[in-house]
């Protein structure tokens, strides 16, 4: 997927929309900041999240960060290959390294998310 076709949260998750399904990953910018990623924990299928809630953890040699839900809904799929192939996050952050899929309760929430150009500006100004 091209980043220009994706939505972004200020907390560095990306969202791809197809109908009421949202595929979620983390941005290339976030992966670069984290450096070597050593561990990823994912939620169980069927778990429900509100925007801003922690869905899982991503751990690098530097720090442990939360993965926040960018939209409201229920987890319908997780990328089970990913925790054992964390290099995919560096190699293919927008395709093979998708993290999970959420069936959205309310697709109108997307207005809270940024487009790619807005997200890039956010990354430039964000103090991390």
């Amino acid at each position, binding site marked *: 997927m091209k980043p220009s076709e994706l939505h972004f949260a200020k907390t560095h998750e990306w969202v791809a929309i197809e109908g009421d399904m949202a595929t979620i990953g983390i941005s290339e910018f976030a992966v670069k900041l984290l450096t070597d990623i050593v561990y990823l924990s994912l939620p169980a299928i069927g778990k429900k999240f509100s925007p801003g809630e922690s869905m899982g953890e991503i751990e690098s*040699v530097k*720090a*442990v960060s939360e993965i926040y839900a960018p939209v409201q809904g229920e987890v319908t799929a997780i990328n089970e290959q990913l925790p054992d192939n964390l290099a995919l996050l560096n190699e293919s952050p927008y395709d093979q390294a998708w993290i999970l899929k959420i069936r959205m309760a309310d697709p109108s929430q997307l207005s809270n998310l940024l487009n790619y150009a807005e997200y890039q500006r956010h990354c430039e100004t964000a103090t991390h």
Partner: protein
Amino acid sequence: MPYLFDTPDQRRHMLDAIGIQQIDDLFTQIPPGLQLNRELNLPPAVSELELQQEMERRLGNSNISPKICFLGGGIYDHFIPAVVDEITSRGEFYTAYTPYQAEASQGTLQAFYEYQTLISQLTGMDVSNASLYEGGTAVSEAVFMAMRINGRHQKVAIAGSLHPEYKRVLQTYFARLDTQLVELPQLNGVIDPEVCRGLVDSETTAIVIPQPNFFGCLEDVAALTKIAHNAGALSILAFDAISPGLLKKPADYDVDIAVAEGQPLGTPLQYGGPLLGIFTCRNEYVRKMPGRLIGKTTDRKGKECFALNLQAREQHIRRDKATSNICTNQGLLALRTTVFLATVGPRGLSQMATLSHQKARYAAELLTKTPGVCLKFQQPFFREFLIQTPKPSTEVLAALAAKGFNVGPDLARFKMQNVDGWQNCFLVALTEKRTREEIEALAVALKTVLQ
């Protein structure tokens, strides 16, 4: 007592240094007619424990051992080889904590790495941390860890036979939380798995089981663990650190987290502290585990070295989301335990556990011969049991102390109202150090006190 090194290797080294083959070569200058040519007329060598006891006996009424110790309740008077003090008091080791620049102290890290390895072997569990402060906080940290694992914050089920002080530590930790502590009732000294099935549900984060329990009795840990797992809860075992020498290892019960008070493994009785918290878990939960973890790796020159692992989860990096506010360990006591376990080995530990059990059985048999004295609970026990007498236990224990026996603690001290007749009950604990004469003397003293 000092520790004297005398291994065959060391003898060889000394003989080589002075250039002779064997010790007898030193005596060749003595004319053969004047040589003894037989062994000295001495009794056979005794064990280190027997030697210690003999020396204390010969010192007579000095104040080395003013009272004979039958105290239990979580801290026990077990044998400690002299080598434990010898090694831990060395200047290179003698510090209380992992230093702040931990990797600069490779010797300390290696000792804790060995500690973790020995504790994993002792328990059969996948992972041990580098220790926590003591058994009570280890129980509380285990409950918090269970909450991080399954996200259940509503309820914790604790055995009514858990050490009352561990329960109080839990209550302190949970004082400002909405979590409900559900007590599984003890019936005749143990938890009946059938009774507590209905008390563990989809809101329960974990069940906390002692083995043996505070009364010394053995719990059906495997059945209780199954109940926890069926409800999606974790099973936390608070085991006696000496017990794996005779009983099943914690991992054999299929528990998820196993914790213990480590004092019996090489730390003397010293007015209740300092103590050592043993903390182990399954590998899949290692990232939720509190405390420090030492790993073995190689440096940039390819040489073996030791480093702190999973530090990204500690509070200096992760602030409020850290696994625990404990970022250090009980360094000196973990070192004592390392030396202790490495010295006694699996066979020594098994001997200690077996002797303690046998002596406890003998003591229970003798003490209950006095009319009116009985075992409070008819259950299998390990090295400690609960006695009921016709008189208030505070009076009985004070009278026994006056006769030179430290026995207890009594249930009155903990106001344990979940036991009928608690005012008249006290614990008696036995270790391999107690002799037949001491046990028999206690039985006579108890009889006199109750007359």
